[in-house]
């Protein structure tokens, strides 16, 4: 596969894979395990309770439990093997994030495409004093990047860096009338994102 006919020197193009990525906080592993454990306990009790009150063949009960155990087993493997892979990295112009075991994703979001940045903290994260950094782009909401389980210092450092670069970009592109369109779509998107949580 030759890029040469596009008049680009391949050596000049930086490879995001060569960036050394940093891991997220280890405490986040506990968050993941707790959010696995609670549904696990609840869901495991239900078939047993139903069996106790309305009798149905033991075979069905065993069948249901087998399926449930398999499902929870897979999600446990995902947490245990997937956690070490949760890393992020910052380059001059974009941010890199990777995660997942059964499905491994490597996402890159250029800073200039970031509409706004939010530092969030749900109740579980609050217990461990961790935060989540959420980057909103103009793509669909599923394209928003979330880095979970970082300290407040890391989150604020990232936010500052991103906004700094995003503002510089605004100044460059803000010349024409279509920036009105831009602001409007940004507002629409941020309003719908806020209402969607």
């Amino acid at each position, binding site marked *: *596969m*030759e*890029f040469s*006919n*596009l*008049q*680009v020197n*391949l050596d*000049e*193009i*930086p*490879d*995001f*894979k060569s960036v050394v990525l940093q891991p997220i906080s280890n405490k986040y592993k506990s968050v993941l395990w707790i959010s696995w454990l609670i549904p696990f306990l609840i869901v495991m009790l239900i078939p047993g309770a139903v069996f106790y009150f309305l009798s149905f063949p033991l075979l069905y009960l065993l069948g249901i439990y087998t399926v449930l155990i398999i499902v929870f087993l897979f999600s446990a493997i995902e947490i245990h093997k997937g956690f070490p892979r949760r890393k992020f990295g910052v380059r001059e*112009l*974009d941010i890199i994030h990777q995660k997942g*075991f*059964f*499905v*491994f*994703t*490597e*996402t*890159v*979001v*250029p800073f*200039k*495409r970031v509409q706004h940045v939010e530092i969030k903290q749900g109740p579980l994260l609050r217990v461990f004093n961790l935060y989540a950094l959420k980057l909103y*782009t*103009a*793509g*669909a909401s*599923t*394209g928003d*990047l979330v880095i979970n389980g970082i300290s407040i210092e890391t989150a604020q450092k990232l936010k500052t860096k991103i906004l700094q670069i995003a503002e510089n970009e605004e100044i*460059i*592109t803000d010349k*024409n*009338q*279509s*920036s*009105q*369109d*831009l602001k*409007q*779509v940004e*507002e*629409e*998107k941020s309003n*719908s994102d806020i209402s969607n949580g």
Partner: protein
Amino acid sequence: MGKYDFSEPQLQDFRGIFIIFFADVIRKIRRYFFAIFIPLLNENFRTFVFNYFILAIAVLVLLTFGYAYLLFKHFKFQIKGHSFQLNQGVIKRSNVEIPFERIQNINLEQNIFQRVLNVVGFQVETAGEGNAEINIKALRREVAVDLKNQLLEEVKQVKPNIDLDSITKAEPSSYSTESLPSKANKLMELDFFSLFKVGISSNFLKGLSLLLLFISTLFNFIFDILSHFLAIDFEEDFFNRIPETLTFVFVFILFMLFLGFLITVLSVMVKYFGLRVLRIKDNFEVEYGLIKRINQVIKKSKTQVVEIDTNPIKKWLNINSLFVSQASSVQLSDAQKIGLVGINSSQINTFFEAIFDLSIQQSFVYLQSSYRYMIRLFLRQSVVFGIAFLVGYQFLGLAQTSFIGLLIILILCLVNFLAYKKSYVSVSRDLIKIGGGSINTNTKYLALHKVQSIYLKRNIFQQFNNHADLVIYTASGREEINYLPYSEALKFQNFILYHLERSNESWI
């Protein structure tokens, strides 16, 4: 200052009551179709309860009309301060204020009811959302035009540099040609023969699946009713005889296919009737529809993805379909894309150059999907196939089902092979081209600098065999290219990021 004063809260034209009423009635009929018509087929019901049934329907109609009247009374709009305001709702009250500088589009439309009652629908849109934010269902045409002009004046005052033509367009046209706005020229207009060509070349699987859905819900129902009326036990006589004649099954299937085909052709022709595309500087105005007349604007800056779809029949007839996705806050479904159907190659070139400032002939570097993509497709289809096989086994027996099953597998092999061959991603200096489709050939173009973010996705098997799915996000949704070789896909991701980050162009 116009003839009408909109500074006080205004009601729409009284004919709006009927518009609201009819729309509500149609909605209710659609939803409760079976509940209304099924009881009528029962003989006991008809003799004893019919009168009360009619009475109940009459009461419901009256209530609907009363509610329509209340809605009408509570629907007030005005130009106030620096915005256009709307207060509506009886139970769920809502107040919408659109500041003048946020107005993106002002549309005048007429659906079939509005045309019959000689009123005009008035819509004011802001950026991002696909749905109009303020939608006034009934205004006299001169009132609507005056309101539009007053709003345009206000917009001009807050945004002096704005080109008003980009916000609004000519009034809803009849189907005869009209004098064009002075700065516009026509890109394309579908005559009836071209419309017919579009109809017969469209994807009739959609029509077929709609038909199958409809038939399957009616199937048992019809046989039940018929057996009551005709005192025949259909299960015994009919169902047991059918499997004996394989030819009957084939004839039946052929008939269904033909019906599905007919439905597709007709629905496409009704949807795109009178398609007209005008070019006004860098934007395009699109109009189409027989029952519901649609007016939309394609803005060069807002356009994210241009999709060209063709198939062997279209190629033979020298037409294509072109779909435009513009920036939106939600993922666009196919129905929300703006369609230019029946477009020919030279019109495509003109459109392409207007939107991208580049010729459609570019030098691209390609990356094909791996043959493993076929495996993924087969796995997905196997679920439905398995269920269908079991159903067929129940009704038709092993021999018949296996035969049909074999045919279907052969067809799937062909379709999946084509899907794998046609799946690719490619880049040029400024564009990304994504290939897809199986029987149809689908090509998507997007400007490289309009990418929002990119990621590579690998499931556990792909991590082993070194392949990945590439996902590209734009402001109109996501594009996914399946099963690319991992290291090459990485190069593409790096390339796109590199140029995107060094470009000074805006994505909107």
